[in-house]
């Protein structure tokens, strides 16, 4: 499976791989649409984070955990998890320093509603980072504990 040219004829998952290769970028793109369109339609950081993580997990399911760990290194996980929470909390602390209450975004800009926009954007970005990395972390943690499953094992 490691060398696609060698196993091309015998690979039973060739359709799956081709379709997944086409779908994964679209799923990731959709995650960002959900993230940044959350002010106008359904969605937000949490949903976008899960969808973004799902694109990485799909990659891992189809191409193997090793390839996925090259695409999304596990070392990113601990930084992403913490940075997301810090970004959320930091937005609250920033609004503190700018004269408002904790997580009162109105003081972040001259116009109160602009401040709310920036605050919501920052906070949702924090949620996205934490949710994406935690979902991938849980998958990696479970997935790394057993050898790859053979096709007959199901």
């Amino acid at each position, binding site marked *: 499976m490691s060398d696609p040219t060698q196993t091309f004829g015998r690979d039973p998952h060739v359709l799956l791989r081709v379709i997944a290769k086409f779908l994964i970028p679209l799923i990731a793109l959709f995650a960002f649409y959900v993230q940044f369109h959350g002010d106008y339609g*359904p969605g937000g950081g949490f949903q976008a984070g*899960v969808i973004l993580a799902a694109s990485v997990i799909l990659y891992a399911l189809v191409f193997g955990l090793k390839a996925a760990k090259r695409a999304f290194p596990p070392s990113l996980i601990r930084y992403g998890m913490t940075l997301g929470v810090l970004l959320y909390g930091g937005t609250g602390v920033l609004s503190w320093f700018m004269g408002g209450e904790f997580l009162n975004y109105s003081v972040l800009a001259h116009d109160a509603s602009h401040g709310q926009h920036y605050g*919501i954007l920052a906070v949702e970005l924090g949620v996205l980072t934490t*949710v994406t990395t935690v979902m991938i972390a849980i998958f990696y943690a479970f997935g790394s*504990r*057993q050898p790859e499953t053979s096709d007959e094992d199901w």
Partner: protein
Amino acid sequence: MSLFAAVAEPAFVVPTMLLDISFLALLVVVAFAIVRMRSLFGIVMLQGVYSLVSACWFVSLDAVDVAFTEAAVGAGVSTVLMLSAMLLADRKSTPVPMRRQVGALAVVVLAGMAMLYAVGDMSAYGDVHSAANSYVGMDYIAKTAEEIKIPNVVTAVLASYRGYDTFGETVVIFSAGLGVLLLLGLNGNSGRWVARPNGQMLNDHAAPSAGLATDNRSEEQRAEPDQ
């Protein structure tokens, strides 16, 4: 309660309500199938089906944000996580003898009776005077347009009015990830640790516990210590 009342009076039956009832019936069917099934793979798949059907139901209730989350988390990621957890266990659950199920049955019956009792206090479906449709909820809907100026009230409530709650949720997710990483790890240091107690050097092979733990990594993973 009004759901039943509306069915009894056909004049009030709207098509979406019929849809709601069929989704709820499907949920019951799937739940019974899960209870009766022994194959863990089938159970995980049916749980995904359950989430997808409830997501459809949320859409029919106009709760698109909740439906979105349910479809992404319940039907998507948690199915995969359950599958990868299942791979560490057996493929089939062993049947439990009848006499050991009596206690569980009693708990379920008691909890079910308590819930049925509580249904009487629930406000009717779509009631304008219910707690969710008065007080602070109405305030959020009325003030979002002038205070936050974004069209999606759900996002305004989630990220701004109830920012504390969402912060708490983010911390909960963070701690869930932290717990999994502390318990399972990412196999990042397996076999490469070094300890120096009292001047002597210990590593994976020289440790007193060497060989006691079974190495469940694959040949491929063992060949690549960088993982």
